[in-house]
């Protein structure tokens, strides 16, 4: 199956090792990735969706048209990009007036949007299209003997009507089963579904409170689990959950928060035999404790 890879901004610019992990692991599992040439920012919710519908949906339409020309669906890792593209497509598909307006704006650029390409999150492709059993059968190394916790990207859960793929957004199972497929034992904890708080303007407008909010999550992880790592599937979750641990350590004056964070595709690529220096090399929280145990 062929999918059009939408990278967004943060992954290729700041964490290209995650991009490498996605490009390395997906083809092994039968997903061929084609690049979205000339794509633009999804648009981020804080950008055009916060100014007007025309620029918001024209930008969504621009990106959707790229995949439509290639005749395949889009695959995205960044939670915000996923949600923004899904919501944009939803508006365009369900409101003929908006679709007409978008196509009017796109026309001089030689583009058109029909809605033929769907937008899929990489964790959904892994969970629903490929499946945990296939993954378990393909890996060469495993996370056996290790405990993990999972961070569900809220942008893949809510609103379930628009973005969802889980049977229940209140009790998602995908990330857990995907990590279990790599041989790890997944621990549950009380604040598992709590947002990391890293997206949008919360950190920018009230950083003190946003950090406290994240602390409550990390404190629950430390108190209630034996975890060796956190598995995420969103670039913002990845960067925020690393950065916030360093900030918290400075506050408490000791190295209390040092749980390695991995994008799921990084763990997958490592278990498929790809090298850590290519697929999991950029980080602010040492991953050695996990990397040394993958066998």
């Amino acid at each position, binding site marked *: 199956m062929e999918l059009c890879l939408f990278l967004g901004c943060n992954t290729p*610019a700041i964490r290209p090792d995650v991009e490498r992990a996605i490009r390395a692991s997906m083809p092994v599992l039968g997903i061929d990735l084609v690049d979205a040439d000339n794509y633009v920012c999804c648009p*981020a919710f804080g950008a055009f969706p916060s100014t007007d519908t025309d620029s918001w949906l024209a930008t969504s339409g621009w990106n959707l048209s790229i995949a439509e020309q290639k005749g395949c669906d889009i695959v995205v890792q960044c939670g915000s990009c996923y949600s923004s593209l899904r919501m944009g497509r939803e508006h365009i598909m369900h409101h003929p007036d908006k679709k007409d307006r978008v196509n009017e704006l796109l026309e001089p650029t030689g583009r058109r949007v029909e809605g033929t390409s769907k937008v899929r999150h990489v964790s959904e492709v892994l969970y629903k299209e490929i499946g945990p059993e296939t993954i378990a059968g393909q890996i060469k190394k495993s996370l056996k003997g290790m405990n993990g916790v999972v961070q569900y990207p809220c942008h893949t859960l809510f609103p379930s009507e628009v973005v969802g793929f889980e049977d229940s957004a209140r009790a998602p199972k995908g990330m857990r089963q995907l990590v279990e497929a790599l041989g790890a034992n997944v621990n549950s904890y009380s604040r598992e579904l709590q947002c990391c708080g890293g997206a949008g303007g919360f950190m920018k407008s009230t950083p003190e409170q946003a950090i406290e909010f994240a602390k409550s999550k990390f404190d629950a992880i430390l108190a209630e689990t034996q975890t060796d790592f956190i598995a995420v599937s969103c670039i913002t979750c990845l960067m925020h959950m690393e950065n916030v641990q360093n900030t918290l350590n400075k506050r408490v004056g000791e190295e209390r928060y040092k749980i390695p964070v991995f994008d799921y595709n990084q763990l997958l690529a490592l278990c498929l035999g790809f090298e850590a220096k*290519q697929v999991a090399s950029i980080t602010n929280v040492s991953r050695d404790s996990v990397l040394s145990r993958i066998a």
Partner: protein
Amino acid sequence: MDLKGSIPDLWKAIYNTGDLHHCFNCSTCISGCPASFGDPPLLVRNLARKVILGLEEELLNDDTPWACVSCSKCEEMCPMDVKPFEMILSIRQWQSANDETRVPPSIVEIYKRGYTQAVGVNTELRDSLGLPELMTITKNPEQLQMFREMLMKTPVVSANDYMFGG
């Protein structure tokens, strides 16, 4: 609450949907909201009230819609289908249209280079990871020009064209 100077039809300018009026103040939207822990807190229910009551001054000066993390939990949980996250975006849009200081700088970045980050310039790092060169819009002047011209026809960009370097 001072309702003098309230504009009964303001909701039509901000969030023109009948769903808004189904809001019954239950606060479900607040209880699951990360930004409700902020200071000042983002209180979605109160914003819905202010829109319904037409409190123009208060709404124009309210920064809290910008603290939203876009998690859409409120959208999922609202029992009355008010679509509170869409309301948040609509309030921001209305503020941006009526107060140029609200226009997010990120749209200027995107207009200029297509992205909020400098995508595709970290070639050395990308090479070392074995990654291909990215065909970004920044490297394709013709496409970038068309993208800009498209945006220039949309309301907030055209109303503030001076921000975009002409």
